[in-house]
């Protein structure tokens, strides 16, 4: 029996805008409106908006919230000041990655945790199962009752500033705050998944459409999951389910800078320390190739005639006009300059390992 897909509060707008809708993590989501490449270019040159309401938004409140999150997440959560957000990973005992998340400290004893839609239930179960070990923690999943819109691109700051009537001029990168939009409570963070400057705005579901319409009136281009993926790949950002999952650890994935190995204990720390001591089994490699057949998830990576690894993500880069991708290989072969071959359904793509990111936004 087919299970019905969930709708975000913006679903009707996407349909009205004639978006191509696809099932994603149990939600009916827009993959594109005008076209993936056009939307991608709009974000790099101006600004675009994404409905990311399907992602989990979990509030944790109480004296135990800070130590609980610090225990479950690889990066330093306890050290976050009020209004500061940080990226990190939730690992299991053996160092495998349950999810990658962003945590914002809203108040001394209140945090907002944003996680991937595909892992929301697993994250909730995981956090809930650890609450008993910490004093007074209340967890509330506000995913269904809120909408989250990501506004990304070089023009986003000025436009969001005008939307919020100057309230956000001091919001730095990776900062977040409760604020007011049109008389409504809103949470805004200066975060994103595109490699551009941008903001993520959370409001209650009932006013989500009004927010989206206002952003479009200000000139934002509606962008779907297709462009979200091409943008994050150019920025070299991992996607859970591709580069990271329970079978990979943060060090292999090149995310060691988000792991507090010489800080407080967290679940998975011992395993990661051991990995550091014993050496990595595999390492994330970034590669580029001439434009041509697309390297897709699972395609074999070859070196000197032997299969040594596989592609995790790949695609055409609209900004750089070449093929780019990520994959896992033995640590020595991830060195920039290493020549690799990718088997694309029988055709061999000549690739070269490079340093991340593929694309870095111009710093103003």
């Amino acid at each position, binding site marked *: 029996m087919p299970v019905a897909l969930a709708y975000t509060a913006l679903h009707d707008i996407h349909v009205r805008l004639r978006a191509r809708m696809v099932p994603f993590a149990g939600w009916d989501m827009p993959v594109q409106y005008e*076209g993936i490449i056009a939307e991608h270019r709009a974000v790099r040159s101006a600004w675009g908006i994404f409905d990311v309401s399907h992602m989990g938004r979990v509030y944790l409140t109480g004296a135990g919230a800070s130590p609980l999150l610090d225990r479950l997440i690889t990066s330093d959560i306890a050290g976050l000041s009020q209004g500061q957000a940080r990226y990190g990973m939730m690992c299991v005992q053996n160092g495998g990655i349950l999810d990658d998340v962003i945590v914002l400290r809203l108040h001394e004893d209140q945090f907002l945790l944003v996680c991937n839609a595909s892992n929301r239930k697993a994250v909730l179960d995981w956090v809930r199962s650890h609450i008993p070990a910490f004093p007074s923690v209340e967890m509330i999943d506000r995913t269904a009752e809120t909408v989250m819109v990501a506004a990304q691109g070089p023009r986003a700051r000025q436009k969001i500033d005008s939307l919020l009537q100057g309230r956000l001029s001091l919001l730095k990168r990776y900062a977040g705050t409760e604020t007011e939009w049109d008389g409504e409570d809103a949470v805004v963070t200066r975060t994103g998944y595109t490699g551009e400057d941008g903001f993520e705005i959370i409001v209650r579901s009932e006013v989500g459409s009004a927010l989206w319409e206002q952003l479009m009136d200000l000139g934002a281009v509606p962008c779907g999951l297709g462009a979200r993926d*091409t943008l994050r790949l150019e920025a070299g950002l991992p996607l859970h389910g591709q580069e990271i999952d329970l079978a990979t650890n943060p060090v292999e994935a090149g995310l060691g800078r988000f792991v507090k190995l010489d800080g407080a204990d967290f679940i998975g720390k011992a395993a990661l320390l051991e990995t550091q001591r014993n050496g990595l089994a595999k390492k994330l490699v970034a590669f580029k190739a001439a434009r041509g057949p697309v390297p897709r998830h699972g395609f074999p990576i070859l070196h000197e005639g032997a299969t040594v690894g596989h592609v995790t993500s790949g695609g*055409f880069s609209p900004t750089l006009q070449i093929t780019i991708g990520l994959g896992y290989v033995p640590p020595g072969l991830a060195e920039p300059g290493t020549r690799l071959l990718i088997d694309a359904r029988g055709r061999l793509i000549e690739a070269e390992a490079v340093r991340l990111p593929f694309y870095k936004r111009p710093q103003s």
Partner: protein
Amino acid sequence: MYPTDLRYHKEHEWVRVEGNTATVGISEFAQAELGDVVYVDLPKVGTHFEQFAKFGEVESVKAVSDLFLPVAGEIVAANEKLAGSPELVNHDPYGEGWMVRVRMATPSQVNELMSAEEYERMLSEAH
């Protein structure tokens, strides 16, 4: 949408006949379904194909689709512009986005293909 001077295959390729040569590409429907085309894999000039054989692949950001030759014959030209500008398939599927030219082995095979009207009817029945 579906020029009446062309003949169509159910797999969404079109054929334009000029004497014994057929120019082949994919339809407006196919390019819209695929989304942004990023690569087209075309055969070498001189290759021979049976009718309805797979002659190449068209890749978009999200998908790969096989290309089927609506009429048997020898490839006499492949559109070299598609290597640097695969988006021509999206922007001008019946013109600049053409894919191959075939010297037909059996020109009467064209009569087995659909007219624009028949192709349009097929599309509306399926959706």
